[in-house]
């Protein structure tokens, strides 16, 4: 009763859960334009995930698996459905998720038949990571919406994300966690698994017994895939950023319901991987070009961000592409040789930044 009253009062006064404040980009997240300065390694139609295979880079581009060694990309194989996640196994094996509903493990990247296939109730597998014990960690964003339909899941306040442990040897599936606000990205951290819980703007650690702790919370962005970084720590990408308008809309049930029912998804008030393609997209006050310029601090409909995390999960520095930039929707980052390679899904680019310049330039 008291909870109901206080919830109503909060809604009425805009307090408590009804507050729409978004943390500011500050401290290690202080904005820069480093992602805008990144070199474009490759332009693709639908880049989705990255993996490193020895001295070559593997890129999932739609249903195609592209291998990039040196400067020449070569298509290795094509699947019948788009690849939604990609991982290289330590022994040279390949793991792919197809369309979010199926995970296949191959002995090597060219093997014709998979050694094991996981389907079950997988619905939106969007990231794969190998764990130290030879198993595979898979994050499944939503039980109700497909892997590319994440915006609808966000607008429906989805909380059906799950984390699975897939064992290629025994071909068994174990659910590590459920009820997550969109699980998107995982990495093994000792015995624990670090998982991005996008809709709750946080990074959580899941212990083998299923206990969850928040490693990094209150992010101003929606985190996505994770990758280990050389010298300890991790690379965390953020595919979209939070805005007060979206936070407000998330609390406006009637508007959201009508928006989902009546408006084409491209024009929803929701973060996107890229923006500015049509005047039918929602426009916010600070988006108005004044004297021919849109200000970089405008609330981002799409944003590009990669965060370097220390081994304890605390952020050390970050690479940005701000509201006026184009390298938005960063979904994957891996260290490859002496470079950091990233996928900016918004413009469909594979980007490269030398690691040395990052460590020097930012002084981390």
């Amino acid at each position, binding site marked *: 009763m008291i909870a109901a009253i206080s919830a109503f009062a909060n809604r009425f006064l*805009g307090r408590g859960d009804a507050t*729409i404040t978004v943390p500011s980009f500050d401290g290690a997240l202080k904005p820069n334009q480093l992602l805008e300065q990144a070199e474009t390694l490759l332009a693709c139609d639908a880049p989705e995930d990255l993996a490193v295979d020895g001295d070559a880079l593997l890129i999932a581009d739609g249903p195609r698996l592209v291998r990039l060694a040196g400067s020449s990309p070569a298509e290795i194989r094509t699947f019948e459905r788009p690849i939604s996640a990609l991982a290289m196994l330590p022994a040279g094996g390949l793991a792919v998720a197809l369309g979010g509903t199926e995970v296949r493990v191959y002995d090597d990247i060219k093997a014709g038949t998979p050694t094991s296939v996981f389907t079950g109730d997988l619905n939106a597998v969007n990231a794969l990571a190998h764990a130290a014990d030879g198993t595979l960690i898979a994050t499944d964003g939503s039980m109700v919406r497909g892997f590319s339909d994440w915006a609808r899941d966000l607008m429906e306040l989805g909380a059906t994300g799950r984390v699975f442990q897939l064992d290629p040897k025994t071909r068994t599936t174990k659910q590590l966690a459920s009820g997550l606000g969109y699980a998107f990205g995982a990495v093994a951290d000792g015995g624990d698994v670090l998982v991005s819980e996008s809709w709750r703007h946080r990074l959580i650690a899941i212990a083998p017994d299923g206990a969850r702790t928040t490693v990094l919370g209150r992010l101003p962005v929606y985190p996505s895939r994770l990758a280990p970084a050389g010298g300890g720590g991790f690379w965390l990408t953020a595919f979209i950023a939070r*805005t*007060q*308008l979206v936070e*407000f809309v998330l609390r*406006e049930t*009637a*508007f959201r319901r*009508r*928006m989902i029912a*009546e*408006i*084409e998804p491209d*024009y*929803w*008030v929701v973060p996107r991987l890229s923006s500015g393609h049509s*005047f*039918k*997209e*929602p*426009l*916010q*006050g*600070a*988006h*108005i*070009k*004044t*004297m*021919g310029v*849109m200000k970089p601090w*405008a*609330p981002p409909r799409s944003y590009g961000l990669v965060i370097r995390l220390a081994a304890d999960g605390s952020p050390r520095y970050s690479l940005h592409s701000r509201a006026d930039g184009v390298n938005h929707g960063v979904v994957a980052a891996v260290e490859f040789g002496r470079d950091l390679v990233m996928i900016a899904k918004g413009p469909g680019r594979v980007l490269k930044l030398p690691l040395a310049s990052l460590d020097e330039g930012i002084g981390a």
Partner: protein
Amino acid sequence: MRETLTRLRYRYWPDHLLGEILSKRWTETAVPVILLLIVGFALSQSLEHFLSPSSLADTARQAGEIGFIGLGMGLVVIAGGIDLSVGSMFALTDFCALYLLDVLEWPVPAVIIATMAVGGLLGAVNGLLIGYLRLRAFITTLITLIIYRSAFDLLIQRYSNAIASAFPDIPSWNFIGGGDVLGVPSVALVYIVVAIFGHIFLTRLRPGWHITAIGGSRRSAYNSGIPVRRTIALCYVASGVLTSIGALFFAARLGTVGGDIGVGLEVIVLTATVLGGITLGGGKGSVVKSLVGVLVVLLITNGLTAMNARGGVNRMALASILLAAAMIDIRWQKNRTRIISKVYVAPTYHALPPPPPTEIGQGGPFEQNDKLRNVTLIGLGRIEAPEDVILDRNDVLYAGSRHGDIIRFFPPDYESMEVFAHIGGQPLGMAFDRQDNLYVCIGGMGLYRITSDGTVQKATDETNRSLYSVNDDSRLRLADDLDITDDGLIFFSEATVRYEMDEWPVDGLEARGNGRIICYDTKTGATHTALRGLKFPNGVAVASDGESILFAETFGCSIKRYWFAGPRKGAVEIVMDNLPGYPDNINLASDGNYWLALVGMRSPSLDLAWKMPGFRRRMAKRVPIDEWLFPNINTGCVVKFNEQGKILESFWDLKGVNHPMITSMREHRGYLYLGGIANNRIGRFKLENADPDFVHYDKRWRKPS
């Protein structure tokens, strides 16, 4: 069903009135007035003779006497001070009047003048110390309270017997004390006269404004050149004089100099002042507040006395009221503007049907193209915010800038530019009259005329006040675009009467018909409102029949036609509605059709939000304005339409890199010139198949080109 209910609710329930009423300054007085009515009603119910003429006259006498002191106190408090010595001054001047009359036997006029002079003198001591020597008002008047009281005590020891034994029977003195005109006591009459003057003094005269300014911010007042010290000193003098007037009436009524005269009077008067709503912090107050406060306090004390409450109870009640009033006063002053800002924005229901298609391949008159991509630019980086552009018969290009200038560029290359005239407000729509005077709508200022030698003249900045509008809508807030008829009538749009120019997004959020079309007659100089209740009226152009104008309603997404003369005079007709964007300026094209700028395009999310007023109201409260859902004015287009409402052609720029926003366009000798209010450039675009000799205002005024 639910939608219909929403529509009806927002159509008939005037949401916007609450904020408008609250932002009226007189609402500050409303609380004490309501309190007065409640107290009056309660007393009339509980006391038998409360409303009898004699009781009312008695109350009026006391109210008049204390009212004078209240006026003085009010004045001092408005100036940011306080006068605690009024009780002692009251006693001293009461003594002075009776001493002069009874002991020295001066004539009544001399007594009056001398008493007021003594009052002024006593006040001048305070004024000198506080105004010129800048002592603290509280401590200074506390000290003079004690000194004056001591002086009074010493004086009555010597003279009280002499005064008490005298029984002067002077008709004029008796009239002052007990006379009336048609039942209204003399003191009340004098009070009314003084109060009316005081109201005019405070609200209409320069010294009154100075006092308010000093109370509001002493430093700013000083920096504005107001003689702060003298004004403050004079306020205390006035307080002394007004107190002495009250004392004169008191002396004439009772004729005694008892030791307790004026004891605790400062508390009563201070309570009345604060209760009336005159802020102790200074800078706010009025005569009416002072009067209302006095009446409330008097009614309560008299009521309690009549109900046989003891003196202590009486004082206790007053003190508690003072405490409560001071508390409410502070909270209210602090939060009033916040409350207003929360309730002023009142979005309404605004439904538009799905817009016609604009996508390439979908066909239709609005199908996007890239014709404007290669506009050439004039004045890039040198002009800011040219909302409208206009060319004269010598091909000189004029445009407004946000610095309040009219800039002009010279042919043939439009490279050289100069400031043609400085006005000081943002120039919006422009038009030339028959004599080549340039008429300009200035946001926030009104309609201005610039003669061909660059002299700036105000044409009009006000119109008739609407009868039913709570906001004073006589001043022009956002004159936007204009055109001139053959008879010299200037029809111009005023986009909104509820917001200032920089607050246009708030008007868009409301989507209420806040705008109007106003007519200024160049022959008589008279201004009147022709149409009201329009959704952000913008572009105006005289139609070919010379009897009607075409005007755009930006947030109504429509073009309408209004007949100002002829058989259909007064009629309004829709020419085009459900446009896919927000129409802005309208201008004549060389082929007799019209150019229309669509400053922005509709987005489905805002269209939906316009149907959900509650959503927008909460958005206005919770979300900062930079993050609001806005009308998209980054992308727009130019279309050509005819008077039948048919779109003939559209010109788009898909990327909007060269010229992002279009608020206006003007055809001139085969080129189209583009203006945009958020731009730092003017666009120039070569038209195909256009009359190469077309000069807008040559054709308009039928001069040979």
